């Protein structure tokens, strides 16, 4: 009897630019588990995919359908708005919810942070550093960068993004730490989650004299800002969030993306080698028989995220155990420095505990390097030719501060 699993995707909404590769990664990984391991403990996974178009209410409606009708035991989720809206529901229904939202509010598993508006989220998990922690890492790097370049005075920092739970999520954490680190914090600049003409925003950025700007949106709209700023001649060090920059975005933005610093959740990117890449390539063949597709960073993250869930399920099923929500959750606590089997060197090690769901505090920063015209040729070609590169910049090991839990 198959195990029903929900898979919420954004293939058509405002964040579909990154939602598609991530969702593909998850789907391929789960299909691969069915194909090569005969599911979990002999039970196939019945993956119920749903494209909710990045609309939280539709996600909630689908969630209720899954819980009431299909009785799913775990869900692979997506956005911040929907994941946060569902916290209460999954806690009530005891369904592990592995999201692609890295909102720090989801990490306070026991509700001990005492922060206003943050409730206990014992069933929420994600793979990678939280948005807030990633930003904290980038700010620490920015501080070093400022000093290394021998600049005078206080660096100015600005948060940019849509007024939406996802870009808003690390806003407070970032601005607070920036102040602590001696940055001058400028009023935030808004731009929508969709591509558009953001020249006005760039002119504002220049007028404010910002030095470091955090891009809170996904790649699709960020590149509009990057291109507009390039045209307007704005010299700012952009800091992208995990969804804010990737290979597709580099191709679309061209040289405008050059120099953007952003965190990467996996230890390697496509085309680099690691023991686990063998497995990843097999997984990739689930939807690409030819094996020629280029898989962006989000695909790899999707694979890791899905495989964490699979292993937690396997743990739950051990010794004839029932694959139920609470047991799957306990499966997430069963290992320390956990790398899913077969993905060594690809996924970074994570550790979850019953009151702290911050899987990792390591922030690996990379820089987008674009050296030529990207309009012609595929992403794979451009990466191979070195026209586009993702170069490691620094790895920041953040302190697991209790007072940073939950925001």
């Amino acid at each position, binding site marked *: 009897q198959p195990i029903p699993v929900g898979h919420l995707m954004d*293939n*058509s909404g405002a964040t579909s630019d990154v939602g598609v590769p991530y969702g*593909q990664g998850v789907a391929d990984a789960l299909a691969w588990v069915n194909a090569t391991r005969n599911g979990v403990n002999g039970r196939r996974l019945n993956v119920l995919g749903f*494209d909710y*178009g*990045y*609309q*939280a*209410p*539709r996600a*909630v*409606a689908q969630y*209720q*359908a899954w819980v*009431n*009708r299909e009785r799913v035991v775990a869900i692979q989720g997506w956005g911040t*708005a929907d994941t*946060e*809206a569902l916290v*209460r*529901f999954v806690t009530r229904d005891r369904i592990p919810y592995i999201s692609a939202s890295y909102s720090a509010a989801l990490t306070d598993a026991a509700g001990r942070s005492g922060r206003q508006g943050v409730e206990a989220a014992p069933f929420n998990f994600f793979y990678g550093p939280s948005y807030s922690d990633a930003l904290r890492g980038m700010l620490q790097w920015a501080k070093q960068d400022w000093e290394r370049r021998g600049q005078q005075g206080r660096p100015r920092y600005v948060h940019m993004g849509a*007024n*939406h*739970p996802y870009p*808003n999520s690390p806003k407070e954490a970032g601005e607070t730490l920036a102040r602590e680190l001696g940055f001058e914090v400028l009023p935030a600049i808004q731009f929508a989650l969709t591509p558009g003409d953001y020249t006005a925003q760039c002119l504002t950025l220049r007028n404010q004299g910002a030095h470091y700007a955090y891009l809170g949106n996904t790649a699709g709209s960020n590149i509009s800002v990057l291109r507009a700023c390039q045209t307007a001649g704005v010299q700012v060090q952009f800091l992208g969030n995990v969804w804010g920059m990737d290979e597709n975005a580099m191709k679309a933005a061209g040289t405008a993306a050059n120099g953007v610093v952003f965190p990467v959740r996996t230890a390697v990117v496509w085309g680099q080698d690691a023991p686990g890449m063998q497995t990843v390539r097999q997984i990739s063949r689930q*939807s690409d028989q030819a094996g020629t597709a280029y898989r962006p960073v989000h695909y790899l993250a999707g694979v890791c995220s899905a495989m964490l869930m699979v292993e937690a399920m396997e743990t739950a099923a051990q010794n004839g155990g029932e694959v139920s929500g609470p047991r799957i959750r306990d499966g997430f606590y069963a290992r320390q420095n956990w790398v899913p089997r077969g993905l060594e060197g690809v996924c970074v090690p994570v550790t979850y505990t019953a009151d702290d769901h911050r899987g990792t505090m390591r922030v690996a920063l990379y820089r987008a390097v674009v050296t030529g015209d990207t309009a012609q040729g595929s992403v794979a070609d451009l990466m191979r030719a070195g026209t586009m590169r993702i170069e490691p910049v620094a790895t920041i090991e953040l302190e697991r501060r209790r007072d940073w839990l939950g925001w």
Partner: protein
Amino acid sequence: MAVMTPAGDYRTTYREDMTIFPTLGSRVALWAGIALLCLAPLVLDRYLLHLLINIGFLGIAALGLNILVGFTGQISIGHAAFFGFGAFASAWLHDVLHVPVALAIPLAGLMTAMVGLVFGAPAARLKGLYLAIATLAAQFILEDFFARAQWFTGGVAGRVTEPFGLFGIAFDRDETYFYVVLAFVVVMFLGAANLMRTRDGRALVAVRDHYLSAEMMGINLAYYRTLSFGIASFYAGIGGALYAHYLLFVSVEAFNILFSIQFLGMVIIGGLGSVMGSLMGAAFMVLLPEVVQGLANLLAGSPIDRALRLGASISYLREMVIGAAIILFLMFEPDGLAHRWRLIKAYWKLYPYSH
């Protein structure tokens, strides 16, 4: 002559002549229909109930829009914002002011009506598409308000709310909530049907058909134009509140321009100026995506699927089919479902002399 009353029509009093359902048959059908619906939760599965509930609250809101567009002739492309206002208002009344849900829903309807009046009063001066686009502006302005008014809406993160309860019983499952929606549907639809056959309802239609002569019949144009906004918003608010306590989560994202357009689609497809048409239109809009999804599921794994890579692109295909269905429907039935329904009825009444 253009009048067609069926033979055997023996009405003797004006009272009988003025009922909503003029024939015995239609009255019986109505009561039987309601009785059948009452039984629905006992026999239908949750999925179908879920669809019926959706049709219910969307139908109520669509009826409101039909009163505005179909009866008074004022096009609105901002209905979803009012629907959303009702949803937020009810959630706010319950979660912040701790008003019981059963009371919060009608109150939310009233609050929405107030907002509708605020937007409707200046709108009374505008005609046709100018008005339509002013309501589009209202849509964006209200959306912005929803995203900003943390105290009221919970901001962009939205608000989680609680199920309907009455006398200590929670109507938190499809089987039970269905009755709540059904009750509202019956009351709201009867209200609208009654409105339309009395003074103010006729005035609304008169304003639509010929406002200059309406004015000379003593009809206060500004009042009725505004009133119809108020009533439409009231219906939208009730629909929205019912939605809020069904989904248990309200967020600004739901109430976007696309949803407004869908409402417009419901009333046009259902039939402008037809009370029951609003329900039919809502049913069409709710069922269409489901049918498309069902078709896709049927095709899954077949050669067609592999050729078109349906799996990966199902969401686009679904949208395309929905778009195409709307187009095709209107090409063949530009006057809406209610019109077709009337023609079918007329045909059977006159059968076999349908010419």
